[in-house]
């Protein structure tokens, strides 16, 4: 449709994604994925999480490399600050998910991206986690995401990219809707 001289390339293989959508329509069971993380306590509030395997497309899968992440709390919490706080990892997850979605939707809509920058803020009243006030929740009471996007598109088209990315985002859904979480001891 677009008479661009260079083909739009955001580095997203949309054909493969759409192909997967069609293949999974025939075999919906393969669409069931289980994501995994493991985590070891190091010392104090410092822990180290490892990501390697997951299940999907009907079989065990493996990342190309094993990823490790250190989580800790900053010195104002009397901790040693060996890594981001767990709630900051939540913001990382949201940012990564929305940004990936923007790239994929832009590719599908033939919009060339030049830069995409997200700034995230999550508000929290720590009276909740400190157990000081039962009316204050532990988690974020608000999250704000601001995107700055430079692309070959109108402002309306860019806003539509961001809207569609939210609509199809797993982390956005996980944060805005309740999820059954079970925690047990082996």
């Amino acid at each position: 449709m677009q008479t661009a001289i260079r083909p739009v390339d955001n580095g997203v293989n949309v054909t493969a994604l759409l192909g997967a959508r069609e293949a999974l329509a025939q075999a919906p069971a393969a669409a069931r994925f289980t994501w995994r993380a493991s985590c070891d306590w190091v010392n104090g509030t410092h822990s180290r999480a490892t990501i390697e395997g997951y299940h999907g497309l009907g079989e065990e899968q493996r990342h190309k490399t094993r990823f490790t992440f250190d989580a800790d709390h900053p010195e104002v919490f009397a901790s040693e600050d060996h890594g981001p706080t767990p709630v900051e990892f939540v913001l990382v997850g949201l940012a990564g998910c929305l940004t990936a979605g923007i790239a994929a939707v832009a590719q599908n809509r033939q919009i060339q991206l030049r830069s995409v920058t997200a700034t995230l803020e999550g508000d929290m009243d720590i009276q909740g986690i400190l157990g000081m006030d039962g009316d204050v929740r532990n988690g974020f009471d608000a999250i704000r995401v601001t995107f700055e996007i430079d692309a070959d598109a109108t402002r309306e088209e860019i806003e539509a990219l961001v809207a569609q990315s939210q609509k199809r985002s797993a982390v956005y859904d996980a944060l805005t809707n309740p999820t059954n979480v079970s925690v047990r001891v082996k």
Partner: protein
Amino acid sequence: MIDGLRHRRRGPARAVTVVVIGAGQAGLAMSHYLGRRGIDHVLLERGEVAHSWRHERWDSLRLLTPNWQCRLPGLRYAGPDADGFMTMPEVVAFLRAYARRLSAPVQTGTTVLSVRPADDGYRVITDRGDWRCRAVVIASGAFNLPQVPALAAELPPTIASVTAREYRNPGQLEDGGVLVVGASATGLQLADEIHRSGRPVTLAVGEHVRLPRHYRGRDIQWWMEAAGILDQRFDEVDDIDRARRVPSPQLAGSAAPSTLDLNALTDRGVELVGRLAGLRDGRLQFSGSLPARCAAADLKLGRLLDAIDGWARDSGLDRTAGPPERLPPTRVPDSPRLGLDLASGVIRTVVWATGFRPDYSWLQVPVLDRKGQLRHHGGVVDAPGLYVLGLPFMRRRKSSFIHGVDDDARELGAHLAVYLDKRNRASTSLSGSCGRGSGKLQPREAADAPDMDSDLGGHPPVHGPGRRGRSIGAGGSRQEQGRSTRTDCRAREQ
């Protein structure tokens, strides 16, 4: 005992070429075209003509389409109020007059219990005897059963639960607060009416389609029709499955012209919350996605109005129509409520305006997909001689509207005639031997079928000069571009 009764009454099956299930606008329109082709048929109707309109709608409901748009094959609205909106008794009178005029062969008070394949066609079993037929047209509607989320069953007994199908008027609700779940045409209208009755309403808003009643001095339906949006065909959109799932636009038909949208409800004191997402420990949970859903609906509305303006400009209407308008953005509370404790007494009643689905429990033909939807291609169901009418975006964006059934019934009637003709020739040449396994006899799409009517099926002939190739419908959006459902459809057509 019941079986015995049925057995006695059953007797030999009557034979007819086509059984049409349902005598609403869809069944009657099909009767019109079958009659013109001299194809003998019967309409089996569980109640009377226009039964759902009479018995399964709330009291104050009016059609979402203006009177001038209420057209059926061979019939136009001729009353005094072309720009008004019919009440339900008026719709019923309109359809009954049409049935009388057609002399439609309607057998009322007849509930279809099952349809199953039989030699050379189908056997239709009803509570008033059986029928043998060559073809079946399902015209029983798309909105038979309320679609209610599973958590409705977990509401505490102190909370009343009412579906949009059961709801008639606010007087049937207890005093006290009401949660209306769903913000499409039904949810908005019920929220407005219930809130005006003095019962404070909280409205749970998920994905929705915002649409003004009037635009640039005309009813929005005039623009949608004139610009060719309502005629957009199922094989022209890139993701028809998604287009068929788009919720009904936020429209209301009323005596006085007005737009009912979320801002109007906010002004009247209705509290907006996000989609109802869960119920845990006696507490309703609402999604935090309300701002995103409202922003998305505003964006889509903006794209639709852009498309309409472009069409108006290219069609030379800019001088006669009013100036382009843009609606103020949907206002959302700063921090929408995320939970509601049912024990607090704030809510006494939950009204489910969460949509409807068709009832195919009687259909004993393996044509349902894993979601319980009919597998069909533009109304030609995946079983020889089986057709459906009146589903959302079935052949065109207007397919589930009263005026939308004409084109669909004409094309499917043509398809059905070709099918019967081929079956006839096949059974003659096989001289009475079993005509089964005749999948190859399936006629091609109606667009290719000979049609006695002048306007052949296929691409609608009328689109304004400025009509663009890309999707401009309320539910259509650029996001679907490039997806390959279109090739899918084509492949199935072969």
